[in-house]
């Protein structure tokens, strides 16, 4: 465990851009060099209760950006945060987690395994001393650190009132790029992200979009072009029956096509049986 004091060497300069930089920074993990990451740093945040599609997107974005050289920062919360950390680790890259409790407190319990993996391959950061229990008011405060540490903040699925939007607000105040993944208007998880987009946030639909914003080169992965079901889903996600009608396929033909695309990691399903492009986060 390490403590960094403000105005001492090693304290991340980015945090000094805050009007209330933490007096002390408590760290768990060996990889202190991550605080001086020279390539782009991207925060990926969003709903704790994101669907498979949102989780898949967060994981894909994190994986793609990390593979291209970005450092992924998030808050180790359930849902999008965890998927972002997972994605970065899946790319064999480090990731940085900013906690709203002591850096030695693996909270939430569900993410204990993930906490351990980040501890080994990345860095856990908090402004609270070791042993500090999580408290609701500490999480919004933590979000300002996430924003300050990043060059860009991507919001993946967020309701109109959510912690992820607090992070985005801080990012705006600090002059960081604010990016958002659009969502279907009737879906409450799209309320926050679509509002950001209306207010001028950068629109992110793919790893290529994100890496473009970050100024990173990424090898374009090949995709199964020419598949009518995939094309239709890229056009608009949908339920199987709706797709059967749109594509004039029998339920049997459509089911077979969906399974093949899912097996190829091209599409995934949300918790309600709706299919869309993207691969689901397999790890919980």
């Amino acid at each position, binding site marked *: 465990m390490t403590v960094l004091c403000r105005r001492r060497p090693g304290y991340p300069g980015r945090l000094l851009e805050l009007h209330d930089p933490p007096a002390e920074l408590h760290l768990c993990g060996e990889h202190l060099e991550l605080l001086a990451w020279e390539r782009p740093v991207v925060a990926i945040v969003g709903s704790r*209760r994101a*669907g498979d599609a949102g989780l898949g997107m967060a994981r894909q974005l994190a994986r793609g950006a990390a593979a291209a050289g970005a450092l992924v920062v998030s808050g180790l919360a*359930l849902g999008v945060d965890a998927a972002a950390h997972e994605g970065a680790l899946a790319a064999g890259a480090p990731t940085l987690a900013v906690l709203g409790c002591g850096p030695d407190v693996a909270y*939430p319990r569900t993410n204990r395994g993930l906490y351990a993996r980040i501890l080994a391959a990345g860095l856990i950061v908090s402004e609270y001393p070791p042993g500090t229990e999580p408290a609701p008011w500490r999480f919004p405060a933590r979000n300002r650190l996430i924003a300050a540490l990043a060059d860009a903040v991507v919001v993946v699925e967020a309701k109109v009132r959510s912690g992820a939007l607090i992070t985005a607000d801080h990012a705006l105040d600090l002059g960081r790029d604010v990016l958002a993944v659009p969502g279907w208007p009737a879906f409450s998880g799209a309320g926050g992200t679509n509002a950001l987009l209306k207010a001028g946030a950068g629109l992110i639909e793919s790893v290529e979009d994100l890496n473009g914003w970050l100024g990173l080169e990424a090898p374009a992965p090949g995709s199964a072009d020419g598949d009518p079901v995939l094309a239709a889903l890229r056009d608009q996600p949908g339920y199987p029956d709706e797709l059967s009608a749109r594509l004039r396929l029998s*339920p*049997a033909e459509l089911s077979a*096509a969906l399974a093949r695309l899912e*097996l190829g990691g091209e599409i995934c399903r*949300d918790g309600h*049986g709706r299919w869309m492009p993207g691969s689901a986060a397999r790890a919980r």
Partner: protein
Amino acid sequence: MMEAAGRLGLDGMLVAPENAAEAALAGTVAVLAPTHLNEAVAVLAGTAPVPALPAPASAGGDAVHPDMADVRGQLRARRAVEIAAAGGHNLLMVGPPGSGKTMLARRLPGLLPAPTPGEALEITRIASAAGELAADAGLLGRPFRAPHHSASVAALVGNARLRPGEVTMAHRGVLFLDELPEFNRQSLEALRMPLEDGEVRISRAAGSVLLPARFQLIAAMNPCPCGLYGDPDRECGCAPQRLAAYRARISGPLLDRFDLQVDVPRVEAHGAGGEPTTAVALRVGLARQLLAERRPALGDEAEALLRQAADRRFLSGRGVDRAQRVAQTIAALSGETEVAPDHLAEALSYRAGSLG
């Protein structure tokens, strides 16, 4: 009892007149139903003629099941029900309240072929032992049992006084468990033996007995405790931990017993009505005959696809076996004798285990 009498080679059996019709269903030995003790003595003494055996009532299968034509839309779920009926597969339906899960489940028994005379007799015998046979009922058709989720372990699997449980009452028919995660965990775990062996062991003070319990399990559950998870129009109020706990109530081994899992999203009520039961039952009947003669073999391409799915951890070890059996059913439904890759791919689309 009448069957036992038949096996022992007895000439006839004296029963109370109220039970005469039921006893005659067994079709084994003469049923004597004297209305008075003197009459019984006369028959036994040979001074009165043995009364003629009443004609057995019509065989089972005449139970009226609701029709598939009533189900609007839900094409993929209907297809899953058809496959389940054709292959006798256990089916899990996941969808919000009011999406039609129960409606679909109730229509499944109507797709199954009428029980053979032997099966009908088993079904009737169980109902009789449980005291649930109406006096004028003939041989019964396939049962559809839908115990409430508050049902105890004893109510589900049977108790020490040998009252048959729901698993036995559903023998040769369908056991429907609505709101599956709301059943208590012990009850769900107690289903595993009957699901595996087609019978259930009930322990008593002096030893134990085996009761038949060869049923098809159809279960339904909401996507989350409040039922609104993923709903495009309304907000789900379930905390993430509560959602995880809800889904964790269905243990892996139990989930593993479902050959098919299908989402039943809520659809517009004005979707088109579907094919009637008679049309679907025809395909089901043909597929069942094909499967009984010879299960379709896996083609090379299908085999490769199955291996690919297993390698990518789409399927557990048990899942590989199940996907293969479902693919065979799908092949049989299209009259094929070999499993094509499309049959296998479709089977994979119904694999159980991904609860959102």
